[in-house]
C-alpha cells in the first residue's frame, strides 16, 4: 500500500526531479514526511516567494523544469508573484501546494485559499487533485505542459486527505499525460518558411529581432549561424541576452526603452524586421505605430496567440525557433547570401558614433562596476539581476558570451526576484560563478534569503549597487515629475553588518580604486560574499525612451537628427 504523498514523490522522481525549493506547513506534512528520507534534495528557503523564484532561477539556468513546494493558504498565496513572474517570462516551473482536505474545501477552513482560482490567470495551467490514484497522471501532465510548447508555470494543488489516503499500487492510474486539447506546433509551415527566405532575399536593410524564445528553444547557435551566413545585424531583447555574444560584430545589443541607440535606429530604419521568439512588448516597441515603420515584419513564435497580438505582421510562422532556423539554414541558396554593404556600414557607423557610455568623473559609477565584473569573469559566470536600474545597467554593460547566463525578471519586473533566483541558479550550475546584481531596494525585498545562502553555503556573490533610492522610480520622478522624489529615498542600511550577522563576509566600496580589489576578494572567497557599492546616488540609466514615445526618440547623451530623432527635454513630461 502507498500513501498519496509517496505516490507524489515517486511521480516526481519519474520526472527526473532531484531538487525542490520549499517551505513546510500543516497541510504538506505528509509530503515532508516522505521527503525526510527520499533521494530528492529539498532546499529550505526563508519565504515561499523565494522558493518559487529559486525554482525559476534553477529552470532558467539549467533549461529543466524547476519545482517548488509550499503549504496551503498563506504559503500558496506567497507563491503568486513568483508564479506570475515565471508566466510572463515563459519559464517551466511546477508549483506544488498543499490544500485543506477535500471535505473541508470551500468552508473557509484554517489556512484554506482557493489557489487554483487565484492562479488561473497567471499559470499555463493548474490542477486540483481530487483523487490519490490520479497523482502520477497529473504530475506527468504538469511537467509535460510546463516544459513543452511555450514553457510556463503549472500549479498542482494537493488536498491533505489526497496525500494521506493509502491505496493499492495496482489501482493507481499510469503517469501518462492525456491531454486532448494540447498539441504544440514545432515545425514551421514550409510555405511560410520559403516566403520568409524570399522576403529576406528582397530586403536591403534587414534586422533580426531576437527574444527569449531563442534561449528557451536552444536556438542560439542556429541564430548566430543564420545571422553570420546572411550577414544580418541582430538586436536582442532583455530576455534574449546571451543568445549571441555581446561582442559579436553583428550584435547591436538590446533594443527598446533602455536599448542602444544603434539598435533603436537600426530597427527604425530597417526595411525588414525578422522577429524570432520575441513578443513586441511595449518596453521594446515604444510607440507601436512608429516601431519599424518602414519594415515588413516576419514573426516566428511558438505561441500562435503572440502573432498579431500587438501589431500586424506580414509573415507569421508558428513553431519552434530552433527547428525553423535550422530549416531555413538548410534551404539557403547561394543567391541568398547577399552582402548588404551600405546597410552594414550605416549600422556600423551608428554603433561607432553612439556607444553605450559609463559615467565618468567623481563618484562610483555602476556601469563601470558591471564592466569590471565582466572583465574579471571574462564574460563568464551566471549574472542574475534584480529589477530596476541595477538590471538595466547589468543588461547594457555585461559582456555576455552564452545563453542561460543572464537571469532576470523581464515581463513582470519583479523586485525581490534576483536574490532567490541566484540561489536556484547556483543549485542548477554549482560549478559556475553566480553573481547577483542588486539595488538596495530590491535586495531588501528578499533579504531574508541570506539565511538560505548560509544554511547551504551557496557561494553567490552579492553586488549591491547602493544609491539609497528606489533608483528607477527616482529616475522617472527626476525626468517626468519635476524631481519630486515621493517616497523613493531609502535610509542608510549597513548591508555588510547584516551579512555579517548571518555569517556572510562582505565589504563596503566607496571609491573607484577599491572596486577591483573588492571584486577580487569576493571571487577568491569560498562561499557567499556581499559587496555594498555606494554608487553615485543620482546616476541614471541612459539612453532612455520615455514611455509612449517612439524608440528613435531617446533621451540622455547625444541625439541624432537625421533619422528623425527629436531631442527630448530631460525635464519634459
Amino acid at each position, binding site marked *: 500500500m502507498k500513501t498519496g504523498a509517496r505516490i507524489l514523490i515517486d511521480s516526481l522522481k519519474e520526472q527526473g526531479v532531484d531538487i525542490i525549493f520549499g517551505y513546510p506547513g500543516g497541510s504538506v506534512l505528509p509530503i515532508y514526511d516522505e521527503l525526510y528520507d527520499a533521494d530528492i534534495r529539498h532546499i529550505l528557503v526563508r519565504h515561499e516567494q523565494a522558493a518559487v523564484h529559486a525554482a525559476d532561477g534553477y529552470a532558467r539556468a539549467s533549461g529543466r523544469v524547476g519545482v517548488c513546494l509550499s503549504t496551503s493558504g498563506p504559503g500558496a498565496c506567497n507563491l503568486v508573484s513568483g508564479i506570475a513572474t515565471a508566466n510572463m517570462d515563459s519559464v517551466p516551473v511546477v508549483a506544488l501546494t498543499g490544500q485543506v482536505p477535500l471535505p473541508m474545501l470551500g468552508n473557509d477552513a484554517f489556512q484554506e485559499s482557493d489557489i487554483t*482560482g487565484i492562479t488561473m*490567470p497567471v499559470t499555463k495551467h493548474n490542477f486540483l487533485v481530487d483523487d490519490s490514484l490520479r497523482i502520477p497522471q497529473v504530475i506527468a501532465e504538469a511537467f509535460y505542459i510546463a516544459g513543452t510548447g511555450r514553457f510556463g508555470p503549472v500549479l498542482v494543488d494537493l488536498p491533505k486527505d489526497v496525500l494521506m489516503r493509502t491505496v493499492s499500487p495496482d489501482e493507481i492510474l499510469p503517469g501518462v499525460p492525456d491531454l*486532448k*486539447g494540447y498539441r504544440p506546433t514545432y515545425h514551421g509551415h514550409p510555405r511560410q518558411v520559403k516566403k520568409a527566405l524570399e522576403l529576406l532575399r528582397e530586403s536591403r536593410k534587414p534586422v533580426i529581432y531576437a527574444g527569449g524564445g531563442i534561449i528557451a528553444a536552444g536556438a542560439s547557435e542556429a541564430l548566430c549561424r543564420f545571422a553570420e551566413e546572411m550577414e544580418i545585424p541582430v538586436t536582442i531583447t532583455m530576455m534574449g541576452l546571451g543568445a549571441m555574444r555581446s561582442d559579436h560584430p553583428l550584435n547591436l545589443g538590446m533594443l527598446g526603452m533602455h536599448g542602444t541607440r544603434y539598435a533603436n535606429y537600426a530597427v527604425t530604419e530597417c526595411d525588414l524586421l525578422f522577429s524570432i521568439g520575441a513578443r513586441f512588448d511595449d518596453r521594446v516597441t515604444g510607440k507601436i505605430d512608429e516601431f519599424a515603420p518602414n519594415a515588413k515584419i516576419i514573426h516566428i513564435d511558438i505561441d500562435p496567440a503572440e502573432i498579431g497580438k500587438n501589431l500586424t505582421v506580414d509573415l507569421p510562422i508558428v513553431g519552434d525557433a530552433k527547428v525553423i532556423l535550422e530549416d531555413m539554414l538548410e534551404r539557403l541558396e547561394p543567391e541568398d547570401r547577399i552582402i548588404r554593404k551600405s546597410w552594414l556600414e550605416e549600422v556600423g557607423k551608428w554603433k561607432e558614433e553612439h556607444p553605450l557610455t559609463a559615467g565618468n568623473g567623481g563618484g562610483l559609477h555602476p556601469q563601470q562596476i558591471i564592466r569590471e565584473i565582466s572583465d574579471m569573469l571574462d564574460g563568464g559566470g551566471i549574472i542574475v539581476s534584480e529589477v530596476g536600474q541595477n538590471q538595466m545597467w547589468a543588461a547594457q554593460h555585461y559582456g555576455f558570451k552564452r545563453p542561460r547566463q543572464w537571469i532576470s525578471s523581464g515581463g513582470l519586473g519583479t523586485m525581490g526576484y534576483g536574490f532567490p533566483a541566484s540561489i536556484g541558479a547556483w543549485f542548477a550550475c554549482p560549478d559556475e560563478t553566480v553573481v547577483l546584481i542588486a539595488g538596495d531596494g530590491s535586495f531588501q525585498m528578499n533579504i531574508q534569503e541570506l539565511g538560505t545562502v548560509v544554511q547551504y553555503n551557496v557561494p553567490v556573490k552579492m553586488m549591491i549597487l547602493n544609491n539609497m533610492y528606489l533608483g528607477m522610480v527616482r529616475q522617472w520622478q527626476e525626468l517626468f515629475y519635476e524631481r519630486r522624489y515621493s517616497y523613493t529615498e531609502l535610509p542608510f542600511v549597513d548591508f555588510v553588518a547584516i551579512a555579517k550577522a548571518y555569517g556572510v563576509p562582505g565589504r563596503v566600496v566607496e571609491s573607484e580604486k577599491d572596486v577591483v580589489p573588492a571584486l577580487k576578494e569576493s571571487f577568491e572567497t569560498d562561499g557567499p560574499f556581499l559587496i555594498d557599492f555606494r554608487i553615485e546616488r543620482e546616476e541614471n540609466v541612459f539612453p532612455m525612451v520615455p514611455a509612449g514615445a517612439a524608440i528613435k526618440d531617446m533621451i540622455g547623451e547625444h541625439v541624432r537628427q537625421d533619422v528623425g530623432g527629436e531631442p527630448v527635454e530631460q525635464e519634459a513630461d
Partner: protein
Amino acid sequence: MKQHILSVLVENRSGVLTRVSGLFSRRGFNIESLAVGTCESPGMSRITIVASGDDAHIEQVKKQLNKLIEVIKVIDITERSHIERELALIKVNAEPGKKRSEVMQIADIFRAKIIDVGQETLVLEITGDTGKIHAIEDLLGPYGILELVRTGKIALQRGASTISPGK
C-alpha cells in the same frame, strides 16, 4: 464591430467554464451571451459564446481560447453556413377575456407554446433567432411582461460539418 458566434468544444472538467469566461474578462473581451452544456461526445461540453469585436480582436480571442489546455476546438460559426436559436420564457399579463385571447393569438403566430396558465398570467416558450424573440417581446410589451428569461444563443453548422476533431 461584428457579432461572432464562437463554438468551443471543451473537456468537461471542473473549472473549465471559469477558465473560459475568466479569459474574456481578463483580456478585455466582452461576452454578449454564453450557453454551455454537455454534447454528443462523452466527457466533453460545448460552449457557445456570442462576442463582438473587429476581426483582429476575434482572432485574438480564438487564439487565447485555443491556448487553454482543456479547450479542444474553437470555431467561428458565423463564418460558416449555420443555424442559430435562442429560447425565451416570457411571463405576461393575460387577464381572462379579450387580452388573454390576444396574447394567445400572438403566441400562435410566433409558434410559441403556452406552458403555464395562471389566473391572470400566461407563460410562453418561444424559440428562434434573436430577431424573432425581440419581435414577440415588443408585441407582448403593452400587455405587461412580468418576467423574461432567455438562454444564450446556441448554433450548429448546416449539413454534415461538425466541430469534432477528425470528422
